[in-house]
């Protein structure tokens, strides 16, 4: 065994012991549902003491953001360590202590584009679950054309005056802050003149309205900015703009790549750790014997396992410094289409029990409908295929 392997083996033992001790048994092995996620934020209330204990322990050890630097409150793990951490978390059936758009999206943006002041101001509260962020990209009517930003921020000397409307803002009604694309130069071409701005949701003039989906209630909102004053500088030296002024599209693109990698693999749902076959095996016997259902279940199992390996391979590649870049569009495309197929089969296998809003399989039906947005949100499958063909395969433009 190499030194490195020995070191990692020791790390595995230690981290497993820590998880085992810090994560209360009551949290283990539960199906991960919307109601068991810890999102944090000013308005956050833990469901019970065990959940708070696990969260506190993780914050103390930096394990809410395992790969972030220790200076901002992370644990500073290397990629192989982080992989082992996730493996042990899965093995011990421990839920993530904290999830948030701050961890997934704002953090990576600030770590890459932020000033030291911005990092110091915004990252520790994210790690500690004190501030909950939401993302303001899409606008009504713009659809896949994300750079078609109409929300404008006018330069008023010491502050920006923001007016406009965002749509598909997840949890805007529960978030403390928003990172949003705003147009700061209306005379520049479409992709120029956009800035990446951090706005306090408590500001006067910010309102939200939830969006009802075909699957029922949703975390998505419309968010309105009506003469919102955003200070150019948030006191501690942190500018409201991340990256260069009018170069927000670069930040957005970087984050989109990041988001794609995440969405592709982020299928959460009914099956939990169970295989498709176990689910089908739990149904009426005739279902498992139906060749149409069985053939598709087998194909899904094969494709899902191979895709999971691909997610790992791409994460390793990204960590190796080679980056993943536009190829992340593949993860987004493949992962979301796979998840839609998975839910179509679950519905088909469940028969008439599956079509109830709240039948014997719980939230299966709304989850199924919700998956239909997977291949739309964060860039449609069609946009992903365009990116792959043009930027990865080098196909000519028409």
């Amino acid at each position, binding site marked *: 065994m190499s030194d490195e392997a020995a070191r990692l083996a020791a790390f595995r033992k230690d981290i497993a012991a820590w998880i085992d001790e810090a994560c209360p048994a009551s949290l283990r092995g539960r199906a991960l549902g919307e109601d068991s996620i810890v999102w944090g934020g000013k308005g956050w209330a833990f469901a019970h003491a065990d959940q708070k204990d696990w969260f506190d322990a993780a914050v103390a050890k930096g394990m809410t953001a395992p790969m972030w630097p220790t200076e901002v409150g992370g644990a500073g793990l290397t990629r192989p360590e982080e992989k082992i951490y996730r493996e042990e978390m899965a093995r011990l059936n421990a839920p993530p202590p904290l999830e948030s758009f701050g961890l997934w999206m704002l953090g990576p943006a600030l770590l890459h584009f932020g000033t030291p002041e911005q990092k110091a101001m915004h990252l520790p509260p994210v790690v500690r679950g004190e501030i909950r962020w939401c993302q303001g990209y899409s606008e009504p009517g713009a659809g896949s054309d994300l750079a078609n930003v109409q929300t404008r921020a006018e330069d008023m000397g010491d502050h920006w005056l923001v007016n406009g409307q965002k749509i598909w803002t997840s949890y805007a009604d529960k978030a403390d802050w928003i990172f949003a694309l705003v147009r700061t130069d209306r005379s520049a071409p479409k992709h120029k003149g956009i800035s990446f701005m951090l706005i306090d949701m408590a500001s006067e003039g910010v309102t939200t309205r939830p969006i009802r989906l075909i699957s029922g209630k949703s975390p998505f909102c419309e968010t309105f900015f009506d003469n919102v004053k955003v200070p150019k500088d948030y006191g501690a030296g942190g500018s409201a703009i991340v990256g260069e002024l009018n170069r927000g599209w670069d930040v957005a693109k970087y984050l989109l790549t990041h988001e794609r990698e995440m969405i592709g693999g982020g299928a959460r749902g009914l099956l939990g750790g169970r295989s498709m076959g176990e689910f089908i095996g739990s149904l009426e016997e005739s279902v498992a014997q139906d060749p149409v259902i069985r053939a598709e279940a087998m194909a899904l199992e094969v494709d899902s396992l191979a895709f999971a390996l691909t997610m790992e391979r791409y994460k390793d590649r990204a960590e190796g410094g080679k980056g993943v870049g536009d190829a992340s569009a593949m993860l987004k495309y493949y992962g979301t289409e796979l998840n839609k197929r998975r839910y179509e089969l679950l519905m088909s296998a469940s028969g008439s029990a599956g079509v109830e*809003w709240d039948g014997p399989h719980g939230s299966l039906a709304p989850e199924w409908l919700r998956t239909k947005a997977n291949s739309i949100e964060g860039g449609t499958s069609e946009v992903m295929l365009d990116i792959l063909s043009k930027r990865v395969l080098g196909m000519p433009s028409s």
Partner: protein
Amino acid sequence: MSLSLLETEDETMLRDAARGWLADNAPVAALRKMRDAGQAFDTGLWREMAAMGWSGVLVPESSGGAGMGHRAAGILAEEMGAVLAASPYLSSAVIAATALQGASEKLTAIAGGELVYALAVDEGTKHAPERARLHADRIGNGFRLSGTKVFVAEGASADRVLVLARTSGAAGDALGLTLFDIDAGRAGLSRTAKATVDSRDHAELRLEGVEATGEDVVGDVDNAMAVLAPALRAGQAGVAAEMLGVAGGAAAMTLGYLKERKQFDRTIGSFQALQHRAAHLWSELEVTASAVAHAGRMLDADPEAAEMAVSLAKARATKTADLAVREGVQMHGGIGMTDAYDIGFYMKRARVAAEWLGDYGYHAAKVAAARGF
């Protein structure tokens, strides 16, 4: 069989009339309104359909019906599907009217829209009449029925229910089953409406010692299939036609959107990748339309020989509706995901109809069996 699948002039007139009336009286907005009000269908609307002869589409003129036959019934179902018009049409006017052939008084009431029927056949999550276990025990001169039926369309609102019960044999036997015609208010029968994604009426029926007499038996005791099989075929052909309409309605909405929506400064319908998918979808619709028309023609010409044609239609319609609604939601993008837009209603109805009276695998296997494997 050299049956032409082309529409006759009469059929085209029927289709045009139905389409016009439905557009005015039962657009998707009507379904949305009923859903928001927690209502499965509009009784007033059903009376108007009855007045046009739709509820008597399969009832002979001698019993007060319109006697238009199965192809015509399919055309009506397809047009209803295209706008997601909710009514007890298939349960009552198509299925029950076929099962109750010869029962002139009941047929007259069905045709008049006064009597709404439901069919209670399945007990598991998949369509399987021969696996019925609900038992009817002989007590004196009559029967006592106990058991549970699920996924009963119009089950919560129907006036009467055709209940498939086992009078002998074991679950899995096609023989030993008997079809009973039971008043929905009879003692011991309880009904639980289920909230299904299509906002239609699908109920669970519990029978606890429901009493029935020989008068209530449809056809012969222990031989339900003689009356049930033709009724199921009629219903399957009807739901296939409805699903063809659902597919066509979703496709039309989507094609319209492609021609009108702009992104990246272009009409999205000018993107070749979407064009090819739209053309493929249209091809599937055309092929399915043939299968649906053929099922109707066969039921009219030679109902005993129509089983394969009916299963072919249901299998094709299930697959095609599935494709149409998936492409429909995806091509609409974000707006298609909002409840405020109509395309989602098509997806929901397609899913429920896919399961009703036999799913894709059930009917594809029937076709395969008819073709020798």
